[in-house]
């Protein structure tokens, strides 16, 4: 008796894989469009799109998601003919295809939320049905390649063209051979690993199997022929891949003139544009196991309790020590245990990390849609880098980026006419950079060269005074409900306002948000967020007989409070807390008494240490009684509205079983409305 498999159980895995294929389809369709706008074709991208939709259709049929099958089938049928002929896709068809992808995305998302997938609208199906085949077949170019006909005959025309273009661009076209054997497989050398290593030193155009006589060197009677384009030397390739240098052969005879002279406008970079690069190597997903985020959370939770237990252990050892018991051996074990916990933590954190590129991969599509809806000419520059961030941070960050991009295209970048009048290039520039700023923080900037924010106008709308700096401007922009929209447009007015951006970045993620804007020139939003959340390095300290912790990443410096360096400033008119001024290396820094803010009984008038943080670049100090130490803490968010207060980002357990508050001193200073900056400073 065997139970019959229930394919519905695969729906979660199906959704993940479908999302991957949708991302590929979007990126590849955009790559096709961008090539064709330059008068070029990109048959490889057409093929990848076709393959993705074909796979989506097959998987959807298996798990019984008929609405997706209906959409994917139409798109696949249309694309197949173009894939076969290598002809350019008609531009209007790309539009319809992107709509189809969107339609599938919506249904996949609905299934992910636990809703059903709605049948596609007749309108969408009609648009896809009306895509007729109008491809003109193109003859393959004559190939001056040194390749036996049996192999040459297996290459698609676009692959031959790719080789020729590479040669014209000054690259070397090579053929490499890899002969698999059980001995090599045992050493981890398989066609998969060879491809992976080869991809680092060369562009792989095609890999073909070739039957060879069975011999001791080729026990399987098989060898793989890899056709490559590269700028590396034979020696470098052989070393990187671990193959014999004799297995490399040049594919082309010496050529003096470019072979495709009539296509001189084709730049070699085109074939490897940024978008394609990310997706061209479908092999990069090999060896990947998909895990539900909730399972990782469980592992993290388990680790959290381990860390709390370790604190208890450390306290117990310290207590023994106090009683004069020799704890040397125990302490050594504690040191090892600490290192192992750190390693384990790093390992779990690594598993949760996703590349920032993933965060930005949908931005080109978004901009494309906005460009159409607003009739703005916008050029997008993306700089993703190789940083990685926690999946949960990435998920929270994405809607924020969408909002900032939408605002930039919709409100900031002027219409082409207006730009011309102002002497700006007709095409607006939207630039997004994303990079790790340290081991713990990610910095994202969203910059436009549009009209800039008119501070006076924003202030008038908000009924406030015109701010004289960027921090003041940001405060204004983040007033709930404030809209700076002059005209109602089709793209904005949905989604979230700046106040939600701020809440996400500052309150939820413990990050920073800055704006800098110059009227007539443009605006930059800078976001700094922690790469990971939940476990952080923190300073613990005492103040008014209470213990608190503050994340190390937030602290600029810890300084001694020397009463010689203090000057008191009259209490603020609005009843805010007393602000002292402390001189730090000759610079006046406003200082608050934490005990006073939390109404705690302070041991002395002035705390003996001060923790300096930066708010929008300006330092602000908080006086505390005593620093206790630095350790890793597990931050648990406080969700109870009765306990939640500005400046408190969560609670932790230092091992004594008592909850300890985790402070966000930057947010605290903001909520107290303390003005920073040197303007009020008295030496």
């Amino acid at each position, binding site marked *: 008796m065997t139970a019959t498999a229930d394919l519905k159980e695969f729906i979660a*895995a199906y959704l993940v*894989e479908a999302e991957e294929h949708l991302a590929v389809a979007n990126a590849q369709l955009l790559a096709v469009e961008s090539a064709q706008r330059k008068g070029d074709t990109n048959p490889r991208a057409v093929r990848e799109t076709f393959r993705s939709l074909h796979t989506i259709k*097959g998987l959807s*049929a*298996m798990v019984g998601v008929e609405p997706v099958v209906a959409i994917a089938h139409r798109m696949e049928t249309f694309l197949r003919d173009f894939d076969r002929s290598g002809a350019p896709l008609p531009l209007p068809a790309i539009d319809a295809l992107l709509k189809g992808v969107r339609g599938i995305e919506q249904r996949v998302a609905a299934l992910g939320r636990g809703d059903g997938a709605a049948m596609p609208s007749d309108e969408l199906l009609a648009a896809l049905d009306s895509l007729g085949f109008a491809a003109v077949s193109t003859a393959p170019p004559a190939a001056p390649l040194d390749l036996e006909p049996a192999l040459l005959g297996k290459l698609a025309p676009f692959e031959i063209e790719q080789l020729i273009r590479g040669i014209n661009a000054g690259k070397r076209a090579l053929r490499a051979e890899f002969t*698999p054997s*059980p001995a090599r497989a045992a050493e981890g050398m398989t066609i998969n690993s060879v491809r992976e290593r080869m991809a680092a030193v060369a562009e792989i155009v095609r890999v073909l199997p070739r039957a060879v006589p069975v011999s001791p060197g080729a*026990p399987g009677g098989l060898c793989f022929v890899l056709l490559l384009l590269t700028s590396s030397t034979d020696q470098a390739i052989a070393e990187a891949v671990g193959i014999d240098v004799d297995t490399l052969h040049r594919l082309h005879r010496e050529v003096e003139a470019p072979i495709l002279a009539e296509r001189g406008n084709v730049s070699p970079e085109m074939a490897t544009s940024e978008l394609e690069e990310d997706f061209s190597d479908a*092999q990069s997903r*090999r060896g990947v196991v998909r895990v539900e985020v909730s399972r990782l959370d469980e592992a993290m939770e388990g680790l959290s309790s381990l860390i709390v237990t370790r604190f208890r252990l450390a306290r117990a050892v310290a207590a023994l020590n106090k009683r004069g018991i020799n704890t040397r051996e125990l302490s050594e074990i504690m040191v090892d245990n600490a290192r192992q916990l750190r390693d384990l933590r790093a390992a779990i954190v690594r598993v949760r990390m996703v590349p920032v590129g993933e965060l930005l991969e949908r931005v080109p599509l978004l901009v494309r849609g906005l460009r159409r809806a607003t009739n703005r000419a916008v050029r997008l520059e993306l700089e993703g880098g190789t940083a990685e961030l926690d999946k949960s941070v990435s998920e929270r960050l994405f809607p924020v980026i969408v909002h900032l991009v939408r605002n930039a295209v919709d409100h900031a970048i002027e219409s082409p006419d207006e730009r011309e009048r102002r002497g700006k290039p007709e095409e607006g520039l939207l630039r997004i950079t994303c990079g790790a700023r340290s081991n713990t923080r990610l910095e994202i900037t969203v910059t436009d060269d549009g009209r800039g924010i008119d501070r006076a106008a924003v202030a008038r709308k908000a009924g406030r005074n015109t701010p004289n700096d960027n921090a003041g401007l940001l405060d204004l922009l983040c007033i709930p409900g404030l809209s700076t929209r002059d005209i109602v447009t089709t793209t904005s007015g949905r989604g979230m306002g700046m106040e939600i951006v701020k809440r996400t970045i500052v309150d939820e993620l413990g990050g920073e948000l800055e704006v800098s804007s110059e009227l007539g020139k443009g605006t930059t939003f800078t976001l700094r967020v922690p790469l990971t959340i939940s476990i952080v390095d923190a300073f613990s300290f005492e103040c008014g007989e209470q213990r608190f912790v503050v994340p190390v990443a937030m602290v600029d410096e810890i300084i001694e409070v020397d009463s010689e360096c203090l000057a008191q400033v009259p209490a603020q008119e609005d009843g805010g807390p007393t602000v002292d001024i402390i001189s730090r290396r000759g610079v006046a820094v406003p200082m608050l008494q934490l005990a006073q803010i939390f109404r705690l009984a302070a041991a002395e008038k002035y705390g003996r240490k001060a923790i300096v943080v930066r708010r929008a670049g300006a330092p602000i100090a908080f006086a505390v009684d005593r620093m206790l130490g630095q350790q890793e803490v597990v931050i648990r968010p406080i969700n109870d509205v009765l306990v939640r207060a500005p400046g408190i980002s969560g609670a932790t357990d230092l091992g004594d079983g008592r909850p300890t508050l985790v402070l966000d001193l930057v947010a605290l200073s903001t909520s107290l409305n303390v003005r920073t900056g040197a303007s009020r400073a008295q030496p």
Partner: protein
Amino acid sequence: MTDILVVDDSKVMRDMIIACLRAIPETSFVHASSGLEAIERLSLATFDMMVLDLNMPDIGGVEVLEFVRGQDTLRSLPVMIVTTRGDEQSRERVLQAGATSFLAKPFTPDAIIAEVRAILGGRAESVA
């Protein structure tokens, strides 16, 4: 023990195929995520049959099939093609290229089990 090589670039699809075929006792499965990997595995180990997808990156199922049929050692390996293209023309094409049988997606667990049992003949029947 019956060794089956399951070739599909989609991990979900491989997992689904194997979940269905687990109902056949005394079978073990090896995954291959591309046509090239399939050819490599076939050249290095012996399998009792292959379940092969048609549409894959690098080289497609038909190319794998053509290569397999051109190799003396693999000429008689039973190959079941599993594909989303269920039309008669595609069926003709893959049977001509040397496929032993042809199964269109979507299929039910019972359908694929029946196909595989038919291919493996008395062997699977007797242990079942």
